[in-house]
């Protein structure tokens, strides 16, 4: 991996120094352990804190649409400066899809692309190499990873801790960016989607049971929705009470409805960054649902979201020969 | 759990009279309701400034200020602006229908402490609803107060609440009723202009006076400014706050402004207290 932190920080500093840039969102060292936090950088000092490492799982494209729209007092001009964001391959698809959906405009953002050899699953990592209170550094190291902690270097094989989404990643290099950092990485052979296949292998009752157990755990914190770069409605229908799609009550019935609705709204839009699954405090394998739908859309409709900024949105278009074998 | 010990249980009250105060999209409808259960009726006691949770079963509840004074009789009055789901359902209630009521909640205007003082109310729009009980209370206990001045304004004459009551008021010597609307209208025999300006024009003396103001935030801001100009002290000024509420009894958490729960520590606050709460005017 040729990612050079010097270069990254220098580029970031240059970008935030621009008059037309409000701030830059990148990754920075978290407060302890393996944590990496989103960093909002406005100056060179901030830029010097940025990192890019196998621990940078978060999809920062979320922050492009997360900012609340506040009333602007009369006579005051809105701040139209751009927001710069650092993206991995998967994250860049979110940016692309947002452009397709007018969630953002190309000229509202500066996209800094970071070719990504794959990030770690922090849970897996912590399981095998217990997390401690000290801040650690991690690096890509040839085929694997290098963990630097307390002056000690630990080599970790790639397969041992690689995040599931990365195992299945087909776009390690950003598909859309204004500035590209480093050299592109060589895409790798992707595994079968074992998670999805395992569920598919069950019969319908087993599946119902499996998901019943999963959705029963849901606490409806909405972190899956909020972290999703493509869930950017200011006013989510699933929050609304008139009409009520989903009751506020937290129980298996409403949780399932919530999860189905959430997944459906991402149909043909999910770019498989895996954030929903990562942030779920109940450990619901949301990625399986999203990936399943994404795969169906890819296989049956030949559509892949977030790769072409000029594409017609999947759910707002059709082909005369869309599959219809299910129709009576 | 037995009935009576659960503060969340609302009691049915029958709508005895209803009328529209104002029209338009966000119209205000007033309800006069009487509890069905005599015991509840007897045990109920409220003072000016307090609120009640009213609602319709199956739809929900809303915290609404009680817009009548206990001195008026064994009934309650609510003036409700049509805004959301609950108020919409409330607006559909007609005479004879049931409204579910629980309360009273919150603190009240310290009417006892104010005895012997002059009372000045400054209201704007629907903000007159929490002020009306004070006006009525003072009217009913005229001997105990030094007099009452009321300033009330709205955008148009059609946006004034309780219109029918003002004429009678202006007949009394110790009650002064000053009405104003933002822009001139045909047949309008009162002042034209904004409430804060009218306050300046009237130039009330701060001496031995209590001011209670309620209305849109922007009006309050200028009223406060002008009261200061006129020499009023923070302790003389009172207002009521409104926040989103669910439980009404200080549990559900959402109505806090700083460390105050509006539903319990309020809704009545003196400006002296309020200005210490950073969120109060957010």
């Amino acid at each position: 991996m040729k990612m050079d932190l010097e270069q990254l920080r220098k580029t970031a500093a240059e970008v935030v120094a621009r008059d037309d840039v409000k701030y830059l969102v990148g990754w920075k060292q978290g407060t302890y352990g393996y944590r990496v936090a989103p960093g909002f950088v406005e100056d060179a000092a901030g830029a010097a804190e940025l990192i890019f490492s196998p621990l940078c799982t978060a999809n920062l494209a979320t922050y492009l649409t997360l900012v609340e729209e506040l009333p602007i007092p009369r006579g005051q001009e809105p701040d139209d400066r751009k927001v710069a964001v650092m993206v991995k391959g998967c994250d860049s698809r979110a940016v692309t899809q947002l452009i397709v959906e007018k969630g953002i405009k190309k000229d509202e953002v500066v996209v800094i692309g970071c070719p990504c050899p794959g990030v770690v699953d922090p849970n897996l990592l912590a399981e095998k190499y217990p997390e401690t209170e000290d801040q650690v550094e991690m690096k890509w190291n040839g085929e694997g990873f290098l963990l630097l902690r307390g002056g000690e270097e630990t080599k970790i094989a790639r397969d041992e801790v690689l995040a599931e989404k990365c195992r299945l990643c087909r776009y390690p290099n950003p598909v859309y960016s204004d500035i590209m950092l480093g050299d592109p990485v060589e895409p790798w052979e992707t595994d079968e989607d074992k998670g999805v296949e395992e569920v598919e292998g069950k019969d319908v009752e087993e599946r119902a049971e499996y998901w019943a157990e999963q959705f029963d755990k849901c606490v409806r914190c909405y972190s899956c929705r909020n972290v999703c770069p493509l869930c950017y409605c200011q006013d989510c229908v699933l929050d609304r009470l008139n009409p009520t799609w989903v009751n506020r009550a937290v129980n298996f019935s409403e949780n399932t409805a919530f999860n189905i609705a959430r997944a459906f709204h991402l149909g043909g839009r999910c770019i498989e960054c895996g954030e929903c699954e990562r942030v779920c405090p109940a450990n619901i394998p949301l990625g399986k649902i999203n990936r399943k739908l994404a795969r169906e859309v890819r296989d049956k409709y030949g559509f892949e979201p977030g790769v072409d900024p000029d594409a017609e949105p999947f759910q707002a278009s059709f082909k005369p020969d869309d599959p219809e074998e299910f129709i009576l | 759990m037995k009935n009576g010990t659960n503060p969340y249980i609302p009691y049915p009250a029958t709508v005895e009279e209803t009328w529209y105060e104002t029209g338009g999209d966000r119209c205000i409808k007033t309800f006069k309701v009487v509890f069905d259960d005599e015991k509840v009726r007897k045990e109920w006691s409220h003072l000016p400034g307090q609120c009640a949770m009213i609602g319709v079963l199956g739809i929900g509840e809303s915290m609404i200020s009680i817009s009548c004074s206990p001195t008026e009789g064994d009934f309650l009055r609510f003036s409700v602006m049509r805004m959301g789901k609950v108020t919409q359902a409330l607006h559909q209630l007609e005479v004879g229908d049931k409204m579910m009521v629980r309360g009273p909640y919150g603190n009240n205007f310290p009417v006892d402490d104010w005895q012997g003082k002059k009372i000045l109310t400054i209201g704007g729009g629907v903000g007159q609803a929490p002020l009306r009980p004070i006006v009525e209370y003072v009217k009913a206990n005229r001997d105990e107060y030094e007099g009452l001045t009321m300033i009330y304004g709205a955008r148009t004459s059609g946006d004034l609440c309780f219109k029918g009551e003002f004429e009678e008021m202006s007949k009394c010597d110790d009650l002064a009723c000053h009405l104003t609307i933002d822009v001139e209208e045909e047949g309008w025999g009162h002042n034209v202009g904004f409430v804060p300006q009218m306050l300046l024009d009237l130039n009330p003396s701060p001496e031995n006076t209590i001011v209670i103001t309620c209305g849109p935030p922007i009006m309050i801001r200028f009223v406060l400014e002008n009261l200061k100009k006129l020499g009023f002290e923070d302790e003389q000024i009172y207002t009521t706050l409104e926040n989103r509420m669910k439980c009404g009894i200080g549990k559900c958490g959402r109505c806090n402004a700083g460390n105050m729960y509006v539903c319990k520590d309020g809704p009545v606050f003196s400006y002296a207290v309020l200005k210490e709460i950073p969120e109060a005017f957010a």
Partner: protein
Amino acid sequence: MTEKPKVGVYVCHCGINISSTVDVEAVAEFAGKLPDVKVAKTYSYMCSDPGQTLIKKDIEEHGLNRVVVASCSPRMHEPTFRKAISEAGVNPYFLEMANIREQCSWVHEEIEEGTAKAKKLVSASLAKVRLLEALETTEVDAEPAALIIGAGIAGIQAALDIADAGFKVYLVEKTPSVGGRMAQLDKTFPTLDCSACILTPKMVDAASHPNIELLTYSEVEEVTGFIGNFDVKVRKKARYVDFDKCTGCGDCAAECRVKDRFPSEFDQGMGKRSAIYLPFPQAVPAKYTIDAENCLYLSKGKCGKSPKCQDVCGAGAINFDQEDEMVEFKVGAIIVATGFDPFDASRKPEYGYDDYPNVITGMEMERLVSASGPTGGKIKVNNGEEEIEPKEVALIKCVGSRDASVGNEYCSRVCCMYVAKQAHLLRDKLPDANIRIYYMDVRAFGKGFEEFYDRVRRENVRYIRGNPSEIFKRGNKLVVKVEDTLNSRPLEDEVDLVVLGVGLEPRADMREIMELLRLSQSPDKFFLEAHPKLRPVDTATDGIFLAGCAQGPKDIPDTVAQAKGAAASAMIPLARGKVTINAQVAIVNEATCRGCGYCVNICPYTAIEMITINRFGNEVEVARVNEALCKGCGSCSAGCFSDSIQPKSFRDSQILPQIAALGVMR
């Protein structure tokens, strides 16, 4: 103000149509107990006058403000009851019908199940009616002008009718002259009128009518707007001839350096024309046009020392600097009269159309037989070796029609008769020739058709029942291989001339018009009418009508009749001066719209556009519905993630309670 819903439920017996399978009294009794229901009644025929009066009286007496009628299909009587309640002062959209006849009593047998289902349907209707909103229909002004696309006989006729009624007409024709296909015909069946003789006066009328603005050599580029208010952009293609100066003298064509080099479109390629040309002698307008592709000067930049046409034109009309011109105007209605294309005989290679010069199409035959045609009306064909007068003639019907192998299953309706007519004309010119017609069926359904067919048969024209399988050459003859299916005899007839009775097909370029006007196609690929029987000249888009073969194969009388029908329909909004806009349109909640533009993509009527609004000082993009264009289908709504766009009367907030009512009532 929010009124409390006070619902009247009316359950219809429909004689015994409903009451024999549904216990209507029980349904009414059940409904009476549901929330907000003030009265619930039954009546023998709700749609009858006394039935409607019953509802009106109840509205007055009980102060009802919503009505549920449980009776037949809303497709039947919704307008009836809407009108009834609105006469009683209730907004007509405060009505919901429960279909307990077509979808209940008539399809179920047991009274228990019928009654149970009727109750559910009523409770679902009730759930919805309580939440319906009052809607007002609005009217907008209609532009008293019409656009007619295509100036064949259909377009000309429609234009004349509308213009005669006093409305402005823009008649747009793609080619340099009006007249269309009819102008190419020789005589017309069954009366044998000379086509040109009856058409030319109409062409001239159309050109000279004060209310008609004729835009030949022009194409419609853009149509936006809606009934009463279409904005049209037309491209007037450059003719390189000053329209006002050209006298139509023809000196230019005669002197053209590439004189008579190019196949004449009008003569189906059988005749030749110059690069500057008049499509045919009677062309209207009689103005020359330069074919830029073939003109030496325009295509190569050089034509001798100087272009000859320019030199000889006394009027100085030649203008090589001319550019396409855009014309914009507004109309209230549009008639599509773009006509047809004859079937391309090359698609039946077994008939050898591409291989043998003496295999020609019916359209070519028209030109061949025409006195103004390339041969001056003489029947001469090249058999590959020499020019001869044919002695043996074969006419084949149903070429490209009723033929699934070329994708045309329909009957082209005119071939039977034009082939008969051509046989008759050939008989006139070739009294001794053997004339055979190969046919599958003879359909002579029109006025005077059967008589004409009889006449032709008596003129020694042989009708052979059989669909030729192949045509090939043997010596200097063509062999028609066919089985005479009446006596199961295989034949190999040797002939000198084969006329292929080609059918009619949608125009090759109709897709452009389709996309321009957002019309749809029927399975035969012609334009789809709104209803095959009851609205044959209307399209699904209000204010756009069809005339002539654009909608399907037709003969001239039918074309004219339909053109007149389209003209009459198109004149309704023009004459009224107003159009009513559908009230059940979609509406956007701009506060929640996230501006993704999905609805804009989805809407088939371009009724939704993105606009920029100021939301508390922030400029944000949101969708907005043009109510005049919206048809209320609701497709946008189902595709909106934030439920911000909702069709009135079919809002989520109105449908979800319906679902709940059906679900909970088990």
